[in-house]
């Protein structure tokens, strides 16, 4: 065998790792070194094609890789060591799994001879990550390393994307063999579906054209499946109203007149009412999450449902579907458009007129109104100003909580891949590392991180990474001194018993930002909001931390209480 003949072409596993990443076109890896991955770090040091970003916590590495992937058309890559390195990465991996983010996470492992011996920094990474990865691998032989990496990227990026973990024992990175990177991969057990069945497409078109009160409901799958353009064409051709899920924002231009805003628990009144009264629902790349459906028993009671999804298990999982179409969003939408053009029937103009009239009445409720004359800074106002001053063209990450919902409601996304947040797992702390990943993918773009004082503290150590790499992120901290969403629920459902939702002893965020080498600004008057954002945007080279002292009592409206139907919204 070649590895015993000390042939000149044999290279180490660590070098194979680097060469494989180069072959995949990876330009940046987010990671943190440790004992089990030192051979790899040494090999990374000795090459210059793949750059490595040193984060301050492994959770930050995975979230940054997610931000990179969500805002670009490339998978994110993270590298962490064994044991605690791997366990710290779990939250990010679970987050990526819930939001179908294409990600390859490399974890170091103790040498194969020590696996199972409770060795120092050993953990069963394959076992721990199994429930929250699309797939995972333990590489036991250096000869399998290149092929495994190829498979990992292939699985992560095709079909319904997701995180793939590759666990590499230290001795595998030290052993050598010849390097040969497979050009393509065939896995007999993995064959993702591409186009939808023509029979189903025709059935869908018949149903779509028969609608009197149609509604198009689309999710993150449109963005992941690069179907935004086709969706816009499809929707405009039909003249039907459309709503996006939290994950799907930007999949259809928010400024378009057919767009009814986001739907779901904190979606718009018009979007939810239109869903409830629809007779035909066209669901595309959306998975009927409970935050969207509300009470499933009361969900879309009159609608026949077409559902397009690349993942067959998402179809009829929560809601029974009449016309399922399994396939990638883009080719399926193209096929639907073609079939619509060929169809003799056209959408019923009279019915559609009446439907839009009804929708107009719901829209006149102005469900996103808030007090614009308040003496306190309203969080909605901050988001709205940020949207205006960036002309809706920034990349916006958010953390999780009230600020996330305000960001979704008040920043109008006209393009896909601009809204980066944690929809499925709802992970606090993602905002800042997401923004880092986005900024690495788009070095010259404006990247805003809309966060809250509780969320930002969950990965605040990454301010140090931002300083090291001079990332000019704009942090908009909507600081209400409360776990806002928790407080809102306690107010609504626990008679105002604010158990542990009050954030006592907050840091001075301005000084904190400055301590990390950034610019910090505190804003406590509505009149200063605009100027502060302008000043921050003018700082092209530096991170600016804007600490907005906002109205403590502001709640997110409208709201569908848990267990209620979509027509049972609480308005302001």
């Amino acid at each position, binding site marked *: 065998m070649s590895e015993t003949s000390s042939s000149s072409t044999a290279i180490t596993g660590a070098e194979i790792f680097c060469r494989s990443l180069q072959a995949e076109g990876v330009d940046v890896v987010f990671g943190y070194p440790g004992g089990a991955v030192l051979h790899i770090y040494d090999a990374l040091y000795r090459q210059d094609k793949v750059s490595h970003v040193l984060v301050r916590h492994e959770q930050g590495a995975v979230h940054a890789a997610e931000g990179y992937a969500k805002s670009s058309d490339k998978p994110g890559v993270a590298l962490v060591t064994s044991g605690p390195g791997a366990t710290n990465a779990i939250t990010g991996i679970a987050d990526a799994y819930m939001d179908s983010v294409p990600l390859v996470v490399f974890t170091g492992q103790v040498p194969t001879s020590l696996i199972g011996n409770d060795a120092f920094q050993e953990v069963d990474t394959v076992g721990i990550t199994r429930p929250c990865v699309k797939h995972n691998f*333990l590489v036991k032989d250096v000869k399998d390393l290149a092929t495994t990496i190829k498979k990992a990227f292939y699985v992560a990026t095709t079909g319904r994307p997701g995180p793939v973990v590759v666990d590499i024992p230290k001795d595998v990175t030290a052993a050598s063999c010849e390097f040969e990177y497979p050009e393509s991969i065939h896995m007999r057990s993995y064959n993702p579906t591409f186009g939808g069945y023509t029979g189903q497409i025709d059935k869908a078109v018949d149903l779509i054209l028969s609608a009197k009160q149609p509604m198009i409901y689309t999710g993150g799958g449109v963005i992941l499946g690069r179907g935004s353009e086709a969706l816009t064409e499809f929707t405009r051709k039909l003249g039907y109203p459309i709503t996006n899920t939290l994950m799907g924002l930007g999949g259809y231009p928010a400024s378009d007149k057919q767009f009814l805003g986001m739907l779901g628990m904190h979606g718009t009144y018009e979007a939810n009412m239109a869903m409830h009264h629809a007779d035909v629902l066209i669901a595309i790349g959306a998975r009927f999450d409970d935050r969207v459906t509300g009470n499933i028993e009361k969900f879309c009671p009159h609608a026949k449902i077409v559902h397009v999804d690349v993942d067959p*298990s998402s179809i009829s999982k929560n809601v029974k579907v009449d016309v399922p179409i399994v396939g990638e969003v883009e080719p399926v939408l193209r096929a639907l458009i073609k079939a619509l053009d060929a169809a003799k029937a056209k959408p019923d103009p009279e019915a559609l007129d009446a439907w839009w009239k009804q929708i107009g009445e719901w829209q006149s409720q102005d469900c996103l109104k808030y007090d614009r004359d308040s003496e306190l800074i309203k969080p909605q106002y901050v988001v709205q100003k940020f949207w205006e001053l960036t002309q809706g063209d920034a990349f916006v990450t958010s953390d999780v909580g009230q600020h996330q919902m305000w960001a979704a409601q008040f920043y109008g996304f006209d393009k896909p891949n601009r809204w980066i947040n944690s929809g499925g797992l709802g992970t606090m702390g993602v905002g800042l590392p997401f923004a880092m990943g986005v900024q690495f993918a788009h070095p010259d773009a404006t990247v805003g991180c809309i966060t809250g004082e509780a969320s930002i503290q969950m990965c605040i150590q990454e301010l140090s990474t931002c300083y090291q790499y001079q990332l000019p992120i704009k942090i908009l901290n909507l600081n209400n001194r409360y776990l806002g969403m928790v407080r809102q629920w306690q107010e609504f459902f626990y008679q105002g018993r604010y158990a542990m939702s009050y954030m006592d002893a907050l840091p001075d965020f301005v000084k904190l930002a400055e301590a990390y080498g950034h610019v910090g600004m505190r804003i406590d008057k509505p009149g200063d909001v605009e100027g502060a954002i302008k000043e921050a945007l003018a700082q092209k080279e530096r991170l600016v931390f804007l600490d907005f002292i906002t109205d403590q009592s502001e709640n997110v409206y409208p709201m569908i209480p848990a267990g209620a139907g979509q027509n049972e919204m609480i308005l302001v």
Partner: protein
Amino acid sequence: MRHIISVLLENESGALSRVAGLFSARGYNIESLTVAPTDDPSLSRMTIVTSGSDEIVEQITKQLNKLVDVIKLLDMTAHPHIEREMALIKVRVGEAADREEVKRLTDIFRGRIIDVTQQTYVIEITGEGSKLDAFLEAVSPFPVLEVVRSGVMGIARGDVALQL
């Protein structure tokens, strides 16, 4: 309703735990599970007996198909099929009369006595689960020391075949 799902999957370490983990993580019921390599050593065949509404079983098959290790599966319940389970049963038979009676029962059920001592028989019996249950009922007057059941295997009748 009870379903028997046969699965062909990659014969790789971890494949079994992915399947078992899927059932526990999603709260699906698993009645029995048997698994072994096939004539192709790179392939394992697994038989899962589960129960649930049509919607749940549809999700189970979809989620199983989604596992990267799973190559193909077949819901046996949708086809005429044969089910088999094996049991090894150790019975205390001290008295000569007991020995005669247990031997007779074993013959009636087309079982075999595969180990004999002064005090015990080990009986091997195969068939559908209900037959095994019936046999256990029949020998229940005698002290049953141990029962080992294999869990169900299934194969479709006729031309329907779960193969690559």
